[in-house]
């Protein structure tokens, strides 16, 4: 996955000394991720699983040439952490943190755009390239190396579908969680562009859900440019009532906007196979080979 999953990725963990940060640093290291440094203000000089800890991102970057960062910092400080990373020239940013205020996310995305930084999340399980690298919190064992690119707005549902794919012998080239918040960095459209350019990815699964219009935009993108790789989609939330937030801050139907029907209709019109059940996805994908 060229644009941000380069061979020489040197990863920083922000909030490395917290429970989550510490736990997942261990799992990411085990998976083979090249973690070079961690940051927690006030904890300079410490170590987490052999990874040196710094007070500031600038310091960590200067001494370890980190170029990507994964953020486990609590919500009230997470946006600040993202801005700090960007100011220190970090170019790929995975924000795991949930419950970041929208206002803060908007600011982060605005800077990211101005500085050409790729942001994944917030409120994302992260990204995994089976079986070489993991920048996230997903359970590694459900993923298998292969040629299906997966992009999703949800966490556990992605594991469910990845597990179905793996069981059916359909490994994944990369799985990306875009994040369950209303305002996130990478969109389906961005990711479709990356998948198209990625030689390893042969077909794509999009896992959408109610709220917003990211799926409609993906459909528009697919149909307008006659997208060259087969795409299968699943959209969660057909049964969701209006005006209620379904767990994710972003999963809400506002008025007529963001219904599952709208998304499914748009995707189908764009020629995308939309699965009714997660268990149908492997079959629909196989059809396309």
């Amino acid at each position: 996955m060229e644009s941000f999953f380069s061979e020489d990725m040197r990863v920083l963990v922000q909030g490395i000394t917290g429970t989550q940060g510490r736990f997942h640093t261990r799992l990411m290291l085990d998976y083979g991720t090249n973690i070079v440094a961690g940051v927690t203000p006030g904890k300079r000089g410490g170590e987490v699983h052999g990874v040196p800890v710094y007070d500031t991102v600038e310091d960590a970057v200067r001494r370890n040439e980190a170029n990507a960062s994964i953020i486990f910092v609590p919500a009230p400080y997470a946006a600040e952490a993202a801005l700090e990373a960007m100011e220190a020239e970090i170019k790929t940013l995975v924000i795991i943190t949930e419950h970041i205020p929208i206002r803060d996310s908007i600011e982060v995305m605005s800077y990211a755009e101005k500085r050409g930084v790729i942001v994944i999340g917030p409120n994302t399980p992260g990204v995994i390239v089976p079986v070489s690298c993991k920048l996230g919190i997903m359970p590694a064992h459900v993923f298998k190396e292969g040629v299906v690119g997966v992009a999703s707005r949800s966490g556990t549902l992605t594991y469910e579908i990845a597990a179905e794919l793996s069981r059916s012998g359909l490994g994944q080239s990369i799985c990306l969680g875009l994040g369950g918040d209303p305002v996130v960095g990478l969109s389906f459209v961005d990711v479709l562009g990356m998948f198209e350019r990625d030689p390893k990815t042969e077909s794509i699964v999009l896992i959408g859900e109610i709220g917003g219009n990211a799926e409609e935009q993906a459909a528009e993108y697919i149909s307008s440019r006659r997208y060259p790789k087969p795409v299968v989609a699943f959209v969660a939330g057909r049964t969701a009532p209006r005006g209620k937030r379904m767990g994710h801050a972003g999963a809400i139907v506002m008025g007529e906007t963001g219904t599952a029907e709208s998304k499914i209709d748009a995707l189908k019109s764009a020629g995308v196979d939309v699965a009714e059940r997660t268990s149908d996805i492997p079959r629909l994908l196989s059809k396309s080979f």
Partner: protein
Amino acid sequence: MKLFEFEAKKILAEHGIPTPRGALASSPAEALKKSLTLKPPFVVKAQVLVAGRGKAGGIQFATTVEQLSQISGKILEMEIKGLKVERVLIEEKARTKSELYFGIAVDRSRRCYVAIASTAGGMNIEEVAARSPERIIKLSVDPIFGFRNFHATKIASDLGYSGKSMMGLAGIFHRLYRVALEYDAELIEMNPLVETDDEDFVAVDARIIMDDNALYRHPNFRERLFEEKKTELTHEEIRARKAGLAYVKLEGDIGIMGNGAGLVMATLDTVQLHGGKPANFLDVGGGASVDRVAEALKILLSDPRTSVVLINILGGITRCDDVAKGILEAKTKTSSSKPIVIRLVGTNEEEGQRILTQRGIRVLNSMDEAAREAVKVSRKKVS
């Protein structure tokens, strides 16, 4: 978190945005007394946190204080969309020359705030956008540059106003943006914003939805998340929220819980696909403890509408043994005999499944299978 109309108006007024003169009352007598300082004609408005109160009779007019008192009494006895009317807002009715709409919302795809204005005030703005898009003015706000006075001026000018009116209107728009930021609003609107006969402007209705995730910056409002009367939530929803669970009440009879919002939504969808009706959405979240799982299940079991509970767990951070223990604890504590259909896979699944099967509880492996089973059980129950 939704604010009541009277609260939103108070905030607007504090920030220099004109609102009608009025007062809050929780009894006809109080309404009568407070109306004495107001000039007729009046309007009486139910203070409930649901849309469509107008159509439900929650907004009525009065020309005398006696009539106002009588109407207040009537509205205070109403229940609108399941919510009891506890208070009414009594106000002087504005002498309307024209009605505008102005609001600030989040534009997800552009990832910024967007200012929306229209001369079609008083109507549902989404309907206006769908039917007469030419009547809608939208302006994306650069998050760093902000919504400046001149942006407000541009909108007011584009709405067709000029001179003093335009300046006054622009001032109101600009102030509303400042309120939006200060209160971390994910939606704020004045609808209608009325231009009166004497060419003043007054926010006749106002709505603020605060970003729940930002409430730590607004401690005054934070505790309200857990107060039934100050939210649009049901008793069960409040209880779930207190336990840190994401819960939404639905109309059906199959109680559903799982871990992860997307997975639970998909579970609901699968149940419906098999002809069943979900009673709720309940996400226990990631890495749920024994206690949290138990509390979640207790909420579902104690819901009288529920004929069967479907549990769908795909353990990642969440451990299946913890889930199994939580299920047993809830069953013991509630002594409910409602059937429970369980799908339990992922981290520590052998241990989790063992704990349950030892107690004679069957555990399924696929979501689809579990959903089908739950629907089957619910049908038996109902028939």
